[in-house]
């Protein structure tokens, strides 16, 4: 299935024109679930507010759906009176603390975490779910928090990088990233560590090649991944009961 993005009614067929309001999808019969899948993967910041248009063979035959409509289909939107979209009340347990919030249905989970809860350790590095900087644990599983709506996290447990250290002790993955020089600029690091925690939960006895494969959804531009792999390896060994003791959070030095 091919697709391209168009800026309003201008005949732009490239996938990269700015401020896409529509996804022009070369397929006649798509389920809304499929459309949703496409939207969240190829969303731009502009698409937070905009729409998608289905049926690219002829623009006249196309259907325009706002993100709200798609969200509504997902059961996430209620409307007041005529058509005004109403903010949704959600209840999310984040790092062990229950949060009750009212959010716009179109709010992405990552923006909810950063802007509403001030948990700025979760970063936004792309708009196509490629980079993984926004990875958090949702009910224990790593997810890219730019790829789901906050309303979809209603009732869920979310863990962010701020929740990794417990009782003043770093999580083994934090200790390992520090000791193995698994970070340089640090921007990908929170997402990388959260993804790694998920990997190690699934595969405690993982090989180095498997670490690389399982982290391919998280991009780092600084380290060449070598010390990230070494850090995940060290954390795996430690979590299986290795000799290393976790460092006290906040200590510095050698």
């Amino acid at each position, binding site marked *: 299935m091919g697709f391209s993005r168009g800026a309003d009614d201008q005949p732009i067929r*490239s996938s*990269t024109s700015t*401020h896409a309001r529509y996804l022009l999808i070369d397929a006649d019969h798509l389920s809304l679930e499929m459309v949703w899948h496409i939207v969240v993967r190829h969303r731009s910041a502009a698409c*937070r507010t905009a729409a998608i248009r289905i049926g690219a063979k002829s623009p006249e035959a196309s259907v325009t759906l706002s993100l709200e409509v798609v969200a509504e289909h997902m059961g996430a939107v209620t409307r007041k009176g005529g058509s005004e979209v109403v903010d949704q009340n959600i209840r999310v347990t984040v790092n062990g603390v229950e949060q009750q919030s009212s959010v716009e249905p179109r709010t992405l989970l990552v923006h909810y975490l950063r802007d509403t809860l001030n948990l700025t350790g979760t970063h936004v590095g792309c708009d*196509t779910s490629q980079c993984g900087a926004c990875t958090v644990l949702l009910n224990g599983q790593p997810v890219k928090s730019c790829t789901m709506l906050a309303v979809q996290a209603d009732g869920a447990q979310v863990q962010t990088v701020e929740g990794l250290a417990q009782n003043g002790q770093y999580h083994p993955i934090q200790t390992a990233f520090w000791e193995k*020089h698994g970070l340089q600029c640090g921007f990908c690091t929170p997402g990388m560590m959260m993804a790694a925690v998920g990997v190690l939960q699934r595969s405690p006895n993982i090989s180095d090649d498997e670490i690389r494969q399982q*982290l391919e959804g998280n*991009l780092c531009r600084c380290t060449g991944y070598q010390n990230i792999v070494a850090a995940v390896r060290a954390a795996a060994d430690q979590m299986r009961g290795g000799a290393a003791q976790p460092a006290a959070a906040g200590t510095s030095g050698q």
Partner: protein
Amino acid sequence: MAVSRLFGATVKRREDPRLITGKGTYTDDFKLPGMLHMAILRSPYAHARITHLDTSKAKQVPGVHAVLTGQDLEGKVNGIPTAWLIPASDLKTPTYKALATDHVRFTGDGVAAVVAETPAIAHDALDLIDINYEPLPVVTETEKALAPGAPQLHDDAPNNQAFHWTFSNGDPDGAFNGAEVVVRHRFVQQRLIPNAMEPRGAVAQWQSGADELTLYNTTQNPHIVRFLASVTNNIPENKIRVFARDVGGGFGSKIPFYPGDALTIFASQVTGRPVKWIEDRRENFLATIHGRDQITDVELAAKRDGTMTGLRVKAYSNMGAYLSTAAPGVPTWLFALIVPGCYTIQNYSCDVLGAFTNTTPTDAYRGAGRPEAAFLIERMADLLAGELQMDPVDVRRKNFVPADAFPYTSAGTLTYDSGNYQGTLDKALEMADYNGFRQQQQQMRQQGRYQGVGLSTYVEVCGLAPSPAAGAMGFQGGLWEPGTVRMLATGKAVVLTGTNPHGQGEETTFAQLVGDMLGIPAEDVDVVHGDTAAIPMGWGTYGSRSTAVGGTAIYKATQKVIEKAKKVAAHLLEASPDDMVFDSGTFHVQGSPDKKKTIQEVALMANLAWNMPEGVEPGLEESSFHDPTNFTYPFGAHICTVEVDPDTGEVKILRYVAVDDVGVVINPMIVDGQVHGGVAQGIGQALYEHAIYDEAGQLITGSMMDYAVPNATHIPTIETARTETPCPHNLTGVKGVGETGTIASSQAVVNAVVDVLSPLGIKHIDMPLTPERVWQAIQAAKSSGSGSGSGNANQPGQPGQ
């Protein structure tokens, strides 16, 4: 200098605790009271006239505070300046408006901006801006842009020519007259997109009344941003504070001052509120600079014994639609002077044409000109070896600058400070078991497995560097660095640096340096960077200069602190300063080790100033402003072995060995990390990354789905080793390591792949060596008969061998 526990030791980074707990402070993490959000409308056309622009609907959206157009900026926001005015080159610097008024020149050129209560409202309102374009003919390729009849971008740059820069030394034409062997080739350095993981952004806080600006900015050089913001936004430089502590990678893309920065500042002035602008990744692909994009026609003259005698280069560089901050210097000075590389070629010329095209502006990307140079000369060394049926190792040995010839003035007129090129090559050959691999290669081929080995022996010019040289090259700035070392009454030290590390770890490295020299724990040394209000003028982090230049400034300041402390200690001990001995943080009187004062005790007394020696001022703080006398010249040898699947064209890296000599090393763990990351970016260029425009000027590779930033499965384990040849002209012996990996690596990979395919007659494949390109080259070579390929299967019609 004394080598002790900290200097040269692997010390865990002090930056990390805040970064592994999510407590970093990147630009997007700042929230100021009353802060508004800005979004920029960007042209969907690569080249067009704006025929209609109506913002009235957008202005009516509840929550919108301002909608800005190019007209609003007229007379208030100046064009984005070019800060590298290369001389004697007929350089054209057309105005680069922060928002276009009537003419857009690349897909992504800004046309309007909305300032609103939330990012979502700003984006909502962008969609309501009514704008019509009249599309114009588009040109995206350098040679087409320079050709007669090409679409013209700027009235004041005829034929789209940005500059014509030439360099010549020795007698290049003479070297080619009667040369025993001449090898010619054309290389395409594809366009790359830096993709620092943190997109660009700014938070501007204009305080009217005080008329002061605070700018939180994701930049590698806050003081340069302060300077350029002053020029662009007409704000006195002393009324601007630029703050950039945690920066999520740069690789050159965060050197320039951008239209978005100037706009954010103006938006704060217009609204009277703090304004945040954070680009999304798509915007980053379009509006943050790209790198490389250079075509070179190269000729190498040599003797039959492999001695290189002459080199001529004709380069065509794609500058994009406008000249970014440092852009003109990249494909000229930073490229051309180091092209002769490790070799004693005496006759050399380089001719560079820069062109405007309907593409995103290019500028410095990790290595900035030097990867292009190293690629060129190292590919030519291999082509010469192939022509003469010599081993690539022997061609290099034949032409190396000998270890006893330093300082050595190259054909590029650079004075290489120190080196031992044979030494790093020998070590790399041993680590990679080169001879063993060569034997095994033949056996593998008989088994139908196609393996090859590629060398890269490089020297780079970095540690940027003497300010007089910068001036001679037309760089509109200095390249010295300040270093301040301040001892507080409690014995703690504060270090100020004008460099702005953003992943390179100098908060740790500099603490090691100062802790060692003062004899105090590294934990007691705080390193402050990224705040122009706190730090004297400095020029930032790029060109592998932070430790070599900034570190030397700090070293000199620390020496001054010790000198002053010695006077205070002598006074307190009622001894002569000449009799004082300073060792491991303690002053004592020579011959009387019990008569002593620790430097912390001296710091307390100097800060209290109750009992200072006559003529000595209170406090214990010293600054140094270090301007190097030369660049630094790291060097090394990288060896890559690969296997090619002949059925799919897929390249698999078997081993990657990097032996680098970056001078004295302060923290080996950090240095290794820099090499890993640099090599990964070079491998990215060699095998994966390619920014592609279609004929309409749309960036086809405009997202991380379409542009292959390497992931963990793409990059092999890199085997690192070092030799250590100190830099002779600075006090620390440090040369710098930030760019070596990128400069050294692409050609090692390509040389290895060509080594695999050379029995088919394939002499070159242009990067990236994707499976498709390699497969196509194999098919073309097969169809033209084994051993008689065109020499450039990827580019029919181009001059081959």
